[in-house]
């Protein structure tokens, strides 16, 4: 037990001191998340693209539009409500503001009531559509709305106009929420199969042989490797999820325990695949090449970057076979309630199947010296 833990600690130290390994397993997925996150968050320049829906057509509603348009960073597009909502869902608009019919009349009535000293009939409302998962954008929208309504409301209190929040889920949310668990799956895969490279290097440098000349058991050697990779996979999961939540408002809905189960199952399955690679690669360079050969097709065919349904039939078949498809699918289902490509038990079964097959191959083919 001491030997197992000592070797695990030694492995972790070696790993943390290896900048290349750190980059591929930690920085690489984060770079992807930030890159795609910012691309799909849209807006970019700080200005707000506002869909303006005027169902009232009164002078009061025109005044309100002018007040919004007076803020330089706002850009207003006049649209009917259904079109505006559609465009916002596609990510072309940041928010949609609807001035309901009867707005002008309500303002007039309120103003008249205040002027005559009678109690006002209560505020009228405008509808503001936002996507609550895009927290910073939502805040910007309400800041802008508040700035405008604050001026209008100064004339009388209690307020004349209140914003009525309406929420819709935009494609942006779907994409980044879909993307974060996918990236997590991808980095779990990397932690697993990249184990092949140091393993082959240690064999090449006769380190494995040197260890074999001590009372250390092989299960301790493999066990320490598994332990270390699992710890890295879990640390990585925490970092990736934290970034997704903190910067891109990804809402993790699923149970943590099930997420951990799939991360662990995935990490062990891909680690077994790493041992298979290490069984066939004679040199460190060969191991590098083989991990790339395994990694890149999986990355692109697992549905992370291109939807599986849109692939040619042949590639769809491949996508149905590779383990990353099922790990990513399972994590999307569990973490953000993504649409299922396969039921969770199928995902688990496929990963388990890969684990058993790879373990079997490695058990027969892996050479220690």
């Amino acid at each position, binding site marked *: 037990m*001491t*030997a197992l*833990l*000592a*070797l695990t600690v*030694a492995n972790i*130290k*070696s790993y943390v*001191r*290896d900048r290349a390994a750190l980059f591929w397993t930690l920085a690489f997925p984060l770079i992807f998340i930030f890159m795609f996150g910012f691309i799909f968050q849209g807006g970019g320049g700080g200005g707000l693209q506002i869909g303006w829906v005027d169902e009232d057509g009164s002078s009061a509603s025109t005044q309100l539009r002018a007040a919004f348009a007076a803020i330089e960073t706002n850009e207003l597009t006049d649209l009917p409500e259904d079109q505006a909502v559609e465009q916002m869902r596609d990510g072309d608009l940041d928010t949609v503001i609807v001035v309901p019919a009867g707005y002008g009349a309500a303002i007039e009535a309120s103003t008249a009531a205040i002027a005559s000293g009678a109690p006002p009939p209560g505020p009228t409302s405008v509808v503001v559509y936002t996507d609550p998962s895009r927290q910073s954008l939502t805040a910007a929208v309400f800041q802008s709305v508040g700035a405008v309504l604050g001026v209008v409301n100064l004339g009388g209190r209690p307020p004349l106009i209140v914003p009525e929040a309406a929420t819709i889920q935009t494609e942006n949310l779907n994409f980044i929420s879909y993307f974060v668990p996918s990236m997590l799956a991808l980095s779990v895969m990397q932690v697993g199969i990249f184990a092949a490279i140091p393993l082959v290097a*240690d064999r090449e*440098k*006769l*380190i494995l*042989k*040197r*260890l*074999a*000349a*001590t*009372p*250390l058991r092989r299960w301790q050697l493999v066990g320490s490797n598994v332990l270390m990779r699992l710890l890295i996979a879990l640390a990585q999961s925490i970092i990736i999820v934290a970034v997704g939540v903190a910067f891109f408002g990804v809402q993790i809905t699923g149970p943590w325990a099930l997420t951990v189960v799939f991360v662990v199952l995935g990490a062990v399955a891909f680690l077994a695949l790493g041992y298979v690679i290490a069984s066939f690669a004679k040199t460190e360079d060969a191991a590098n090449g083989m991990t790339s050969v395994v990694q890149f097709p999986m990355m692109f065919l697992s549905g992370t970057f291109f939807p599986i349904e849109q692939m040619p039939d042949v590639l769809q078949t491949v996508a149905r076979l590779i383990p990353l498809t099922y790990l990513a699918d399972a994590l999307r289902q569990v973490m953000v309630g993504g649409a299922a490509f396969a039921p969770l038990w199928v995902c688990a079964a496929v990963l388990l199947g890969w684990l058993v097959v790879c373990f079997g191959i490695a058990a027969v083919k892996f050479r220690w*010296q």
Partner: protein
Amino acid sequence: MTGGTTVGPAIAVRGLTKRYGDVQAVAGIDFEVAPGEIFGLLGPNGAGKTTTVEILEGLRAPDGGEAMVLGHDAARDADALKPRIGVSLQTASMYPKLTVTELIDLFRSFYPRSRPTADLIEALGLGERKDARSADLSGGQRQRLAVALALVNDPELVFLDEPTTGLDPAARRSLWDLVRGLKADGRTVLLTTHYMEEAEVLCDRLAIMDHGRILEMGTVDELIAKRFQERAVRFDRLAGLAPEELAALPAVTSVKEDGDEVLLFTRDVGPTIGALLALADGRGLEPKGLAIRRATLEDVFLDLTGRALRD
């Protein structure tokens, strides 16, 4: 050093064979190593030294024969053997990103009983480098670390495979001192080398190996005396002197030409040199680099195999 008292030889090898595909790496060898002895396997690369050592360390299974190490069958009982031996492999690399101290601590965790890390660092002269990563060590320091790792479990028997290959002369000498220290501690040492000088200086007894066989075995003096009762007169080759003429000089038993060097083996140095100088003088020649020396292991190897042992 503490631990088991081994009755009989530390190592006993009988009829050992090992084949890799078409190559007969070890072709039936027999030898014994006594407790407390430094025993050397001397031979060129590919002679079968490393294969032999790795069988004794329990790392490889022999095809045939028997390898008893500290009373254990190295092939069948490696688990009992490993805690009692120390091993330094031919390539002395270790996890490159771990420090000297970390590596020694790591290896200590593998053994039920171990020496304190500080003692090992002190004994191996690695104090100034104890926090250096193994990748940053010099060749000599790396070898000393490898020996430190071999001594972690306070072993009765230490295997050192080519411990000084690639080291500069100063580092080589410091490692020799270390190996002598192992013997002084009462440990048995089996080392392989292809350096004649190393074998002459360090080994109590040695076996000369080539092509998987042991050609000759004994102390350095025995090995030399067995073939060369005489001493050798050496000089740089002179174009005007034919080997037959040299062989006819008084007391000369044989003539060996090796590259630009000529060796006259003689029972009596004085008359041979006198006659050689007279003969050369008569032709207006002067032998250069003239020296008298005892035959060396190099000569023994040359005589055994017909070729020089060079690295």
